[in-house]
C-alpha cells in the first residue's frame, strides 16, 4: 500500500516540484530586466531600487521561487508585465481556445487514426498502404502541415478562414478546423501505426485461431477477440498522444494566429513577460505529469502481469 502511494502520489508530486523549480530557474536566469520594461531605461538608480524592493525582486532566488509557487498553487500567478492584468484572467479565455483545439484534434486523431490502423491490421492487402501513408505522416510537423493546409484550403480554395479565432461555437469550430488538422496529422499517423501493430498482433494470436477454428464469424471475432484485446495499448497511446498535443499547439497556434495559450507563450517569451511564461509553463508541465501518471496507473490496474514486470523496469 505504501509503495502504491509513493508511486502514484508522492513521486509525481516530487517530480512536479522539481520541474517547477527548473521552470523558475530558467526564467530567473533570463538576461534583461523587468524593471526596464516597466520604467524604461532612463529612470534613476533610486527609482529602480525602490521598484525592485516593492516588487520583491531584491530577495534571494529561492525565496522568490517559493513565493511564486505558493501563490501559484492557489491560482494566483501574478500580473502580466506587458498587459497589466492578472495572469490568470489573461490565460483563462485563451486556455479555452487551446483546449477546444486540442479536443477537436483529439477527436480527429482517434477516429481517423484508429480506423486506419484497424484497416491496416486486419487486411494484409491494405497494410503496406497504411504503413506508407503513416510513415509519411509522422514526418510532417505541425507548422508545415499548417502552411500546406492554408495554401490549399484557405488561399486557393477559400473554404476556411486563415487567421483568428472566430465567434460563437460554429464560428470557432470553423476557424479551428484547419489548425486541428494541422495539429492532428502527425499524431494520426502515429496512432494508426500503433493501432495497426496492435491489431495485426492480436489477429495472429493463438486465441484468434481458436475462435476461427470454432466457426465464429469474422465481425464477431474482430469485436470480441481482436479489438477487445488490442484496446489497451491503443487507448494508452491515444491518451499519451493527446497529452502531447498541448506542446504541438504552441506551434500551430502561432502559425494560425489563434488566441490560445500556445501563441501567448511564444509572444511572452519575446516580450520577456516572466509571470505569463511561468504560468503557462506550469500548466503544460502539470498536464503532462498528470496524464502520464494517470496512464501508468490505468495500465497497472488493467494488466495484472505488469505488477510482476515492475521489478524489471524502471518503475
Amino acid at each position, binding site marked *: 500500500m505504501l509503495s502504491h502511494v509513493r508511486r502514484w502520489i508522492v*513521486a509525481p508530486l*516530487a*517530480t*512536479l516540484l*522539481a*520541474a517547477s523549480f*527548473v*521552470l523558475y*530557474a*530558467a*526564467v530567473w*536566469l*533570463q*538576461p534583461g530586466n523587468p524593471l526596464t520594461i516597466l520604467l524604461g531605461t532612463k529612470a534613476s538608480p533610486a527609482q529602480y531600487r525602490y521598484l525592485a524592493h516593492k516588487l520583491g525582486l531584491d530577495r534571494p532566488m529561492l525565496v522568490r521561487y517559493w513565493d511564486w509557487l505558493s501563490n501559484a498553487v492557489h491560482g494566483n500567478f501574478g500580473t502580466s508585465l506587458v498587459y497589466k492584468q492578472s495572469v490568470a484572467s489573461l490565460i483563462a479565455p485563451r486556455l479555452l481556445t487551446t483546449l477546444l483545439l486540442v479536443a477537436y484534434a483529439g477527436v480527429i486523431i482517434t477516429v481517423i487514426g484508429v480506423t486506419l490502423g484497424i484497416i491496416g491490421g486486419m487486411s494484409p492487402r491494405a497494410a503496406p498502404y497504411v504503413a506508407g501513408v503513416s*510513415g*509519411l505522416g*509522422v*514526418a*510532417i*510537423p*505541425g*507548422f*508545415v502541415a499548417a*502552411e*500546406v493546409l*492554408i*495554401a490549399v484550403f484557405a*488561399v*486557393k480554395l477559400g473554404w476556411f478562414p*486563415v487567421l483568428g479565432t472566430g465567434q460563437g461555437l460554429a464560428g470557432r469550430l470553423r476557424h479551428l478546423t484547419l489548425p486541428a488538422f494541422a495539429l492532428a496529422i502527425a499524431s494520426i499517423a502515429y496512432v494508426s501505426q500503433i493501432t495497426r501493430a496492435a491489431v495485426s498482433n492480436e489477429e495472429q494470436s493463438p486465441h484468434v485461431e481458436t475462435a476461427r477454428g470454432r466457426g465464429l464469424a469474422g465481425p464477431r471475432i474482430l469485436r470480441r477477440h481482436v479489438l477487445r484485446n488490442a484496446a489497451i495499448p491503443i487507448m494508452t497511446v491515444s491518451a499519451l498522444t493527446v497529452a*502531447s498535443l*498541448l*506542446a*504541438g499547439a*504552441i*506551434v500551430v497556434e*502561432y*502559425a494560425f494566429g489563434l488566441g490560445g495559450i500556445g501563441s501567448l*507563450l*511564444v509572444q511572452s*517569451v*519575446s516580450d520577456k513577460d516572466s509571470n505569463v*511564461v511561468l504560468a503557462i*509553463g506550469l500548466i*503544460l*508541465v502539470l498536464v*503532462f*505529469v498528470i496524464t*502520464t501518471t494517470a496512464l501508468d496507473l490505468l495500465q497497472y490496474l488493467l494488466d495484472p502481469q505488469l505488477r510482476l514486470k515492475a521489478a*524489471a*523496469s*524502471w*518503475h
Partner: protein
Amino acid sequence: MALTARLARVPALLRAEEPRTKPDVIAVVAGFVCIALVAAAIFAPLIAPYQPDSIDATAINQGPSAAHLLGTDSLGRDVLTRVLYGARLSLLGPALVTLLSTTLGTAIAVAGSWLGGTADRLIARFLDILFAFPSILFAVLAVIAFGAGLIAPVIALSVAYTPYIARVIRAAAVHERQLPYIEACQLLGYSSWRTAANHLLRNLRLLIIAQATITFGYALLDLAAISFIGLGVQPPTAEWGLMVSEGDSALLNGYPYESLAAGVAIVLTVVAFNVLGERLAARSRGMQ
C-alpha cells in the same frame, strides 16, 4: 595457441553469431537519400546556383522557372539556393542533438543497468523530472535563459531526449547483461569498463544506431519548429524552419514556393532518416 589467448576468445565465441541476411533494399535507398542530403549540405556552395542572401528586387515571389528551379522568395532570393544552404544548419543542429543525447543516454542507461540498486533508482528519479517536460517547452526555457539561436535549443533538446533514449537502451542493456558471455568476461577478470565497452556496447550498437537515426528525425522537427516560432535561428540565415515562417506572407498572397520547398525538404529528410532507423531497429530486434 596459448591457453590464455584461447580463453580470451571465449567471450567473443559465446556472443550471438550474427546471421547472414540479404541486404534490405528499402534501407539502402533510405541510406542513400540520407547521404545525398548530407552531401548537398556540405557541398552547397559548389552546387547552389546563387548566393543565399543575394537579393534581387526584380525577381520577387516568382514560381519555378529555368533561372530559379524552385522559384524565389519575397526578397527575390533563389529558393533552391536557400534550401541547399539551409540544409547546413537544419542538419547540423539535429546531428549535434543526436550525438549528445545518444552519448549521454547510452552512458546513463549502461551505468544504470550495470550498477543497479540505489544508483539505478536515483538515475530513474532524475530522468523522471526530464520526462515531465515536453521537449519543445524545454527548448523554449533554454531560449529564455540563454537567448535565441541554435545553441540553446540544441543543448536543451539533447537533455530533453536523453531520458527517452536511456529508457530504450537500458531495457536492452538489462537483457544483455544477464547473458552468459558477460559472466564469462567477468570470470576472465576483465574490468567492468572493458566488459561494458568492448562487449556489452558492441552487441547493442545496432540498437543504438537505430535509436540515433530516429532521434535525428525528431530533433530536426523540433529544431525547425523552434526556428519557425522565431526562437531559433534568426534571419537572414537560411534554415528550413525559418524559411517556412518567412514564406508565410508570400503564401497568403498565393506564392507558396519558399514555404513549401522548405517544408518538403524537412519532410523528405525526416522520412529518409526514419525509414533507415526503423529498418536498423528491426534488424537489431531480429538479432536479439
